[in-house]
């Protein structure tokens, strides 16, 4: 009798739903979830690879996957604060409300950088009080997210717990190896070569991982568009430090960066905003492409 009950309880989730419905805001998080979940999950990404995750149109169609979701994966640290909360409410889905088991905040498992020490003031620009939210650019952070995702999926769907944990462990190890390999490759470059200019303050995790030094930002303050006097200062600093590479994501305007690069005799490296999830891209492939493009530019 007890065995029968147990079987029934175990079989219930499998009967109620064939696959765990997972929705991730960022395509990088969606790619990680797909690798951890394998064929036991169906994953949807709300943000396009080359869409600025700060400014997403909260299209009502995004409510539909949220309405069905068993698990919502968010980046957190207020990255999605400008568009996700009303969609979450409109989804009418208790599983994925903030604090529920089906709500996974990736920022809760990573080491945060640039956590403001004093009072947060908007005169400093669009800064995030909990720390810089762009940690998906560091595969070491991604590795920790993979492990935590494995545990969370195992809790939500115990039938496939073994599979989730095994996939997560394997992905974690692959990402750590990748991170170490690239870190060592960049460390072989002289420190003077590892200087960059960054468009928006979105790459401190990438800089930390690859040992890059940001000599300037093209935006005077996060989220404030560049002004002529500031850009002149950036050029001065680039020339003085002999930094020749400007890094930015695809969704930021490129003209200013291209002009700066031309005047400083350098180049712009445009990074994809995330994995091309809808084309089957993996996180490892995407982050390796980014590291290779930066390495190639720095070694010139």
């Amino acid at each position: 009798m007890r065995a029968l009950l147990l079987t029934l309880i175990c079989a219930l989730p499998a009967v109620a739903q064939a696959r765990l419905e997972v929705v991730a805001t960022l395509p990088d998080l969606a790619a990680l979830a797909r690798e951890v979940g394998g064929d036991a999950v169906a994953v949807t990404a709300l943000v396009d690879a080359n869409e600025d995750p700060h400014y997403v149109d909260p299209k009502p169609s995004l409510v539909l996957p949220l309405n069905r979701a068993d698990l919502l994966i968010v980046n957190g640290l207020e990255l999605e604060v400008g568009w996700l909360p009303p969609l979450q409410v409109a989804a009418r889905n208790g599983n994925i409300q903030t604090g529920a088991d089906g709500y996974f905040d990736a920022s809760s498992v990573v080491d945060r950088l640039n956590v403001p020490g004093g009072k947060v003031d908007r005169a400093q620009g669009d800064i995030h009080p909990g720390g810089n939210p762009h940690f998906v650019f560091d595969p070491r952070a991604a590795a920790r997210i993979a492990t935590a995702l494995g545990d969370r999926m195992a809790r939500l769907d115990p039938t496939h717990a073994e599979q989730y944990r095994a996939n997560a462990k394997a992905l974690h190890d692959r990402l750590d190896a990748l991170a170490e390999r690239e870190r060592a490759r960049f460390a072989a470059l002289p420190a003077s070569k590892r200087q960059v200019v960054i468009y928006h303050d979105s790459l401190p995790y990438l800089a930390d991982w690859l040992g890059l030094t940001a000599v300037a930002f093209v935006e005077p303050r996060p989220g404030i568009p560049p002004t002529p006097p500031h850009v002149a200062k950036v050029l001065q600093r680039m020339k003085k430090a002999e930094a020749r590479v400007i890094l930015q994501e695809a969704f930021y305007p490129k003209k200013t960066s291209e002009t700066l690069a031309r005047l400083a005799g350098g180049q712009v490296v445009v990074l994809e905003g995330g994995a091309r999830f809808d084309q089957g891209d993996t996180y490892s492939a995407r982050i390796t492409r980014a590291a290779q493009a930066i390495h190639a530019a720095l070694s010139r």
Partner: protein
Amino acid sequence: MNGPRAWAALVGLALGAALPARAAAPDDPGLDPAEQAALEAALHADAAAVEDAVHPTPVVVAAGAGSSNPDISLVLDTAGAWFSDDPAQLGGHDPNRTGFVLQQLEMNVVSNVDPFFRFEANIVFAEFGVEVEEAYATTLALPGNLQLRAGQFLTRFGRLNPTHPHAWDFVDQPLVNGKFFGSEGSRGLGAEVSWLSPLPWYAELAGAVTNAHQACCARSFYGGDDLGVEDPRDLLATLTLKQFFDLSRTWGLKLGLSTQLGPNPTGQGNRTDIYGADLYLRYRDPGSRGALSLQVEGMVRSRQVPDDRLQDAGGYAQLVWDIDPEWSVGGRYEYVSGVEDDPLDPAWDTARQRASAQLTYYPSHFSRLRLQGNHDRLPDRDDALWGAMLALEVVVGAHGAHGY
């Protein structure tokens, strides 16, 4: 004769303020030791009391700094305006005089209450005082794709009505909203139930029941006359259907149908019906911050009055181009018909037309400066009314996101 008395008061105050300091000085010759000791003891006691009172405060602050604090934001809308003649704006927060105007200072408070409810309030401070514009709770996890909302809220009629001036593309409220609903739009105390359909595209049905009175917010119905509720038909019913279609990666189309049915005060059983349709077509490449959006809204109204049925209609069409994160430009055309012997708007016997153009500059995501020009043809005036407005908006605090 006020001069000497004021001086005396000031001197007295200065002396009073100086007294404790002098008393605390040990070598003060004007006080005997007993007096000095008594004063010092009193000062110590006060200081200790202040310290005791202060001690618990850091604990409260620490708790408040956690995530249990609601998100609170303030939106300040202020403007300078000029009109070629007496202004005739209809919106409660529209600049409506030549000179400076405080359109509103809106305090928005949002928080999840528990796993079952979300709370939202908009409290508006204006030149005339303070009002609770909205305060309601929304359910988060009802079964059957249902959602309930209760409290005071803007009804979901049409596209513009459920939103706040902060989310509008123009400085002022469309004329048809002001004429049919009132200066604050369609708003009331009541309850709403909505349902997300299981269709493969977004289709949401909502029905609300609210009080039918309030001059600001239900003027086609009971308006300023609270005639009470003796029958369910004495309440105001609002029904809406909203649908959204992802036409492509870059184009989105939202369509809405709305109706509002309720009693009017012109006689027993006299009713008002308002029907509306709205369209929002938006182009945006997800890889850029630029966008182009077309918004069209039309409404027809039918009122039973003694011995007659009054019918009028109105609407607006606007095109807004967000050039980049800093600049936006838009144009709007409005048309609202009139009827003879209208008990609400006796002078509005023929159509009123207004054309507007705006240019907006966003120094950051949290501030904007908007210049708008209006050309208004009113039914009861020979000359066109021209208007120009320069409006500043600033937002501080954690402000909730806007819908599509």
